[in-house]
C-alpha cells in the first residue's frame, strides 16, 4: 500500500461572487483513515466537500485523487473515478419517486450488469450493511424517519462498494442513541470494508467515536490536522473554544 495520500487538496480557492470561502486551503486524506472536517457555521465545510466531489468547480488550486489531478481528467476517467465514491448528502438526497430498494439499485443498474435476482439480494445486503430494518425496503422516502433516511442514503452510497465514502453531517438530526449507533456503524464499515471516509460534522461525539484525524477549517483554510487528543491541546483560540467548551469537554471525558 502506497504512502501517497488518496485525496490531496492543494491551494484551493473558492468564492461566491466577491465572498471568498477558501483561500489557499490544503488538505491530505490518507488511505484507510477516517478524516473529520470541523469548522464554524458558514466556514465552508460543505463547500469543500462539494468541491472535492466536483459539484463546484474550484476557482484556484487543484485537487488530486490518487495522485492524479481532477481538473485534467477526461470524462471517462472521471466517470471511472466516481464509481469508487459513495456520497451521503446532508438531507440524504434519496430519489423521492423511488422506493428504498429502487434507490439502492440506481447506481447498480446504471453501472454493472447483474441478474435481477442477485441484484435484489445485493440491495437487501446493502440495506443490512447500513443497518436498516427489512420492512423499510419497499417504502418511499417520505414514509421514512430522519434516521432511516440516513441509513437508506448510506445503503445507496455503499451500493457499488466504494473505496471512499463522503459523509455530510451524517448524524445531524438524529437522536443520541441513533447517532451513537450510526457512529458505530461507520467505524465498523471502515474496519470491515477498509474504506477511506471523509466526513463533515458538528457532532463532537461523532468526532471522538469515529475519526482517526480531524481537520479544522477556520480563517478560510485548514488551520490544523491532528488527532482529537492533540487538537485539544492546540493553542489556537477557535480550537480552544471548540474543544474546550462545555460540550467539547463533555465529549472528551466520555
Amino acid at each position, binding site marked *: 500500500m502506497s504512502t501517497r495520500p488518496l485525496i490531496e487538496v492543494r491551494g484551493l480557492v473558492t468564492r461566491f461572487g466577491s465572498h471568498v470561502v477558501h483561500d489557499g486551503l490544503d488538505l491530505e486524506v490518507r488511505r484507510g483513515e477516517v478524516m473529520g472536517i470541523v469548522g464554524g457555521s458558514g466556514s465552508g465545510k460543505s463547500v469543500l466537500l462539494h468541491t472535492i466531489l466536483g459539484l463546484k468547480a474550484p476557482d484556484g488550486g487543484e485537487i488530486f485523487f490518487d495522485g492524479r489531478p481532477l481538473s485534467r481528467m477526461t470524462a471517462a476517467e472521471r466517470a471511472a473515478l466516481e*464509481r*469508487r465514491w459513495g456520497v451521503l448528502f446532508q438531507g440524504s438526497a434519496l430519489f423521492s419517486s423511488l422506493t428504498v430498494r429502487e434507490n439502492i439499485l440506481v447506481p447498480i443498474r446504471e*453501472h454493472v450488469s447483474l441478474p435481477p435476482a442477485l441484484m435484489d439480494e445485493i*440491495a437487501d445486503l446493502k440495506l443490512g450493511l447500513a443497518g436498516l430494518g427489512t420492512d423499510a425496503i419497499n417504502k418511499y422516502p417520505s414514509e421514512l424517519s430522519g434516521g432511516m433516511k440516513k441509513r437508506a442514503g448510506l445503503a445507496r452510497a455503499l451500493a457499488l462498494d466504494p473505496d471512499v465514502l463522503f459523509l455530510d453531517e451524517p448524524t445531524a438530526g438524529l437522536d443520541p442513541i441513533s447517532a451513537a449507533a450510526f457512529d458505530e456503524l461507520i467505524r465498523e464499515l471502515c474496519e470491515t470494508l477498509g474504506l477511506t471516509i471523509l466526513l463533515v460534522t458538528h457532532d463532537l461525539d461523532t468526532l471522538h467515536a469515529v475519526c482517526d484525524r480531524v481537520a479544522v477549517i477556520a480563517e478560510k483554510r485548514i488551520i490544523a490536522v491532528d488527532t482529537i487528543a492533540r487538537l485539544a491541546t492546540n493553542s489556537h483560540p477557535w480550537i480552544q473554544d471548540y474543544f474546550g467548551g462545555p460540550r467539547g469537554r463533555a465529549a472528551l471525558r466520555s
Partner: protein
Amino acid sequence: MAARHTDSLVQPRLAVSEAEGRAVLEPSGDWLIETIGQMDRQVRAVERDHSVKALHLDVSGLGRIDTSGAYLLGRPLRQGDDPVPEGRISGDHPVAARLIREVHARMDHCPPEEASGWGLRKMLTRLGAGTEHVLDEAWDTLGFFGHTLVTLGASLLNPARLRWTSTVHLMETVGINALPIIAALSFFIGAVVAFMGASLLETFGASIFTVDLVGISVLREFGVLITAIMLAGRSDSAFTASIGSMKMQQEIDAMRVIGLDPYEVLVVPRVIACVVMAPLLTLAAMLAGLFGGLLVSWVTLDVSPSFFLTRLQNVVDWTHFMVGMSKAPVFGLVIAIIGCRQGMKVGGDVESLGQRTTASVVQAIFMVIVIDALFALMYLEADI
C-alpha cells in the same frame, strides 16, 4: 481494499472438487460487483446440486473481493440465519473469511416487492380505488367548501379580522397581473368568432348577423370562460403551489401553534380576491372580445364601428351580459376553493406537491366547464 481499476480486473472462476462426500469450492480471480454477474448461475447450480452440509470453501486462490462477491461466495454455505460454522472456510486470504462472515451476519432477506399484474382482478381493484378516490375528493371538497364559507362569514361579520393587506396584494396578482393575458386571449377569440361568422353568414347574405353572433357568444360564454380557465391555469395552480410549499415547510403548523387560523389567513383572502376580481376580469374580457369582433367586422365586412355598436345595442339584450357576469363570481369561488384545498392536502414530499398542483388545475377547469353547463341548463329552463 486495494484500488480498483476496471481495466485490470481478473475474471472470476469457480472450481468445485469433490472428495469423500465433501465438495470444496475453490474460487479464483476477482469477485467484485463488476464481475460477479456471470457467476450467479454457476453458484446457483452448486447450491442445487450439493447439500449445504457437504460444502466447503477454500479462499486461498481468491483475488480481490468486495461485499457483493462475499455475499455470492457465502451464499452456498448459508443455512437459515445461523452463522457459517467454523472450519467451513479455509485457505489464506487477508479479508475474505472475515468479510464473508460479516456479510452473512448482516444479510437479511427483505420482503419482495408487491407483484404488479394486469389481471382482471387488478383492473377492477384499480377501478374501485379510483371511484372511491373521486367520491372521497368530492366529499372532502364539499367539507372544505363549508369550512371556508363559515370562516368567510365570520370574517365578514367582523371585518377587523380580515387580512386586508394580503387580500389587496392577492387581488393585484390574481386580477391586475392577469388582465393583459386575459384581454389578449379574449380579443383573439372575439376576432376568430367574427371571422368564422362573417364567412359563414355571408353565404346566406346575412353577414350583418355577425354582430349578433359576436355579441351573444362573447357576452354569454367566451368572456367568462376565458377568464375562468386562465384563472384556473394561472392563479389556482399558484395557490396550490404556495400553500403546498408552506405546508411542506411546516409553516401551516407554525401558524396553528401561534394561534392563527390558516383558513382565515390563507384561504379567505384568496377566496375574496378571486370572487371580487373574476367579474372585473370578465368585464375586461368581454370588452376585449367585442373589440376584436368589431375590428374584424370593420376590416372584412366593412361594418363601421359606430354601426357595429348601434346594432349591438339594438339587438343584443342586456340579459346576455348579466348571464355572463352572474357566472363569474361562482367560477372565482370554485377556483379559489379547489386551489386552496389541494394546497392544504400536500404531504411532506416534493412528489405530492406536483401531483396536487396537477390535480388542482384539472379539477378547477373540469368544475368550471361542468358548472357552465349547469348554468346553461338553468337559464334555458328559465328562458333567459
